[in-house]
């Protein structure tokens, strides 16, 4: 009894120490960001760059407030996020089943992989002119570009996950006479989930990085458009405000949404996520 008590007290102490270390690391991270802001301010004050090309941190903050008040920032953010979510959802909807087929069937790999490997190196933005010809300017062409640049990570990751699934799981499925669809639903997909989640994470990252370029060329809304439009108005403060918005949304999704997804699945099951 006393042994258990001592052990749990030690565990508590260690986890408390762990929390302290974490918060020290967090403080370090914030300190660097603060130092960066100070440096930015100093560079601005030094006058190396002309003021019409280099905004100060306060000017950017003011641009935030102004674009928020006018509704411009929210409208453009929503336009970008909606395209991003639809594009990523489409990439997952096509990429996951296709990845399962590629991972599970040697014939599917032989038939489709060469074409996939050829198309994969085409940068997302190279699709933009064609997308404009096909879909015009706006929502559809941007979604198309996100889809085509984002499908590869989810596709290849799902394929790897399925292909490297522990063969013993398949043996169990065969011994207990699992029908094909049941096997896919209850074993292949959850068993490949570490890869699938990492794939969606990468797809999301690629999409979010491509969307700005796409919107600069093929759109009259969205954060990319807002940044590009600010060029004509000679408003670098709005450009930077747009860039920071992109950074914040990307950071929230990549560090919170996907971490949450892993917590409620992989971590609960004691499985490891892949980096």
């Amino acid at each position, binding site marked *: 009894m006393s042994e258990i008590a001592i052990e749990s007290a030690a565990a508590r102490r260690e986890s408390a120490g762990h929390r302290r270390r974490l918060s020290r690391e967090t403080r370090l991270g914030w300190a660097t960001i603060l130092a960066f802001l100070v440096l930015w301010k100093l560079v601005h004050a030094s006058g190396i760059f002309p003021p019409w090309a280099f905004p100060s941190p306060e000017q950017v903050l003011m641009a935030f407030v102004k674009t928020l008040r006018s509704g411009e920032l929210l409208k453009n953010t929503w336009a970008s996020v909606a395209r991003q979510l639809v594009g990523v959802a489409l990439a997952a909807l096509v990429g996951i089943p296709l990845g399962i087929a590629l991972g599970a069937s040697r014939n599917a790999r032989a038939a489709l992989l060469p074409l996939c490997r050829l198309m994969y190196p085409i940068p997302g933005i190279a699709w933009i002119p064609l997308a404009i010809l096909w879909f015009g300017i706006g929502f559809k062409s941007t979604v198309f570009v996100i889809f085509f640049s984002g499908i590869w990570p989810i596709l290849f990751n799902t394929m790897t996950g399925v292909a490297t699934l522990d063969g013993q*799981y398949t*043996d*169990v499925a065969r*011994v*207990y006479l699992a029908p094909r669809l049941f096997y896919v639903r*209850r074993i292949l997909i959850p068993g490949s*989930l570490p890869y699938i989640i990492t794939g969606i994470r990468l797809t999301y990252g690629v999409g979010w990085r491509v969307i700005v370029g796409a919107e600069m060329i093929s759109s009259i809304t969205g954060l990319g458009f807002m940044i590009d439009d600010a060029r004509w108005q000679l408003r670098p403060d709005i450009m930077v405000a747009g860039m920071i918005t992109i950074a914040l949304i990307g950071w929230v999704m990549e560090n919170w949404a996907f971490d949450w997804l892993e917590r409620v699945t992989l971590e609960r*099951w004691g499985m490891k996520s892949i980096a």
Partner: protein
Amino acid sequence: MLEIRALSKRYAVDDGEILALADIDVEIDEGEFVCLLGPSGCGKSTLLKIVAGLIPPSDGVIRIARREVTAPGPDRAVVFQDYALFPWMTVADNVEFGLAARGVPSERRRAVSGELLRAVGLAEFAGKYPHHLSGGMKQRVSIARALAVDPVLLLMDEPFGALDAQTRFVMQRELLRVWRTYRKTVLFVTHSIEEALYLGDRVLVMTARPGRIKAAIAVPQERPRDIASLEFTRLRAHTLDLLSDEIAKSMAQEATAELTS
């Protein structure tokens, strides 16, 4: 019950073929507990997988209740060495896996898994995930999963090989208790002489590769067996005698393979 006739297994390798199993003839009666004992690499697990229908034999036939079997079927269930539980399913869902695969409705499944988890002493773990369980507990779940589909033949592939000595002993006694309750025919693969003699009605001793049945040892002692008794010690010495040549051969094979690879 189970009948294996003139079975052999060859594997194709780079420079020809390896004969893994040869001239296997085995008969097992209804309700019998038979252990397959052999040195590592003798093909005892391969034989078990062939009986399970997971690997096809090169020659020979397997009959269960006089019907030839060539693929997995509802009459057999397998307990694997490293449990092979699905980490993304709760303990109860793992136990119910075979029933769910057969489309058994969920209330019926819950009833079966509830009863079996009580039988293996894990009732309060039904909603937990496997990674919360110890090795011994995982193997109990795996045994419950096998019993859930009510097979006539239970195939066990070194199920306690990964457990520590104490847990292993507890699990052996538990298995005998469960076996008495559910009256299954069991084919149990092991490389431990004590385990084979403690559990089996009969112990089939296999040779080094190519695996053949070298001898069948009947164990007449009543259960629970006293492993310190004179009778048990004699039987163990006899079995070790039969096995030690094969172990030496198997080690020589492994050494050669190591040198030529």
